[in-house]
């Protein structure tokens, strides 16, 4: 009984995870612009790989009764580094193809966005917006 339930959970997680991965790649092909295209792999594919890793962990527990932590390592690593690589990809895209006249929101330190920042255009210290006082 408990084995059948475990197999059912593992199968559902495998199907859901690989479906999310497929949706991420479909979005990578079909979305129109790189800044929208960036959403599909960074969310859907990461969630799909997380589902497959969870399925693998539960499979090991159901099969042999031991707890496996390798997959947790991979999942932690992926979930930590996927936003970092997406941030770097967006920054490199802005650096290469972004137009500066686009209506970005203002930064709060008196300088431009770090991608478009030129050296030596920093405001003097007293003109900068001050950080809120510490309580």
């Amino acid at each position: 009984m408990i084995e059948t339930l475990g197999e059912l959970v593992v199968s559902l997680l495998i199907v859901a995870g690989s479906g999310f991965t497929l949706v991420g790649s479909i979005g990578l092909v079909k979305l129109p612009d790189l800044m929208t295209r960036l959403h599909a792999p960074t969310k859907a594919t990461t969630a799909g790989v997380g589902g497959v890793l969870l399925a693998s962990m539960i499979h090991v527990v159901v099969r042999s009764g031991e707890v496996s932590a390798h997959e947790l390592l991979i999942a932690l690593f992926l979930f930590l580094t996927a936003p970092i690589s997406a941030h770097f990809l967006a920054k490199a895209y802005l650096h290469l193809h972004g137009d500066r006249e686009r209506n970005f929101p203002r930064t709060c330190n008196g300088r431009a966005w770090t991608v478009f920042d030129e050296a030596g255009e920093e405001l003097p210290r007293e003109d900068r917006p001050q950080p809120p006082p510490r309580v």
Partner: protein
Amino acid sequence: MIGYALAFGFAAISVALLLNLWRLATGPTVIDRLLAADTIVTNLIALIILYGIRQMTSTYFEAALLFAMFGVISTITYCRFMLRGDVLE
């Protein structure tokens, strides 16, 4: 039951890899190709894990972990090269 789910998983991830390859081949910008390569690495991790479930062994987790680490490191390094023209300044 796990067998059918694994068959579906292999098929879905293979189709996803083909779609990534299409984006890698026809991506209009360099960053598109880089994003496709990053997604290929992530899909390969899922494929390795599925193969590990199918073979009922834990031999392949280190391979998946190495794929994860080097995929992220290569993506960030190439983006840094695009941004700065150099990797280590």
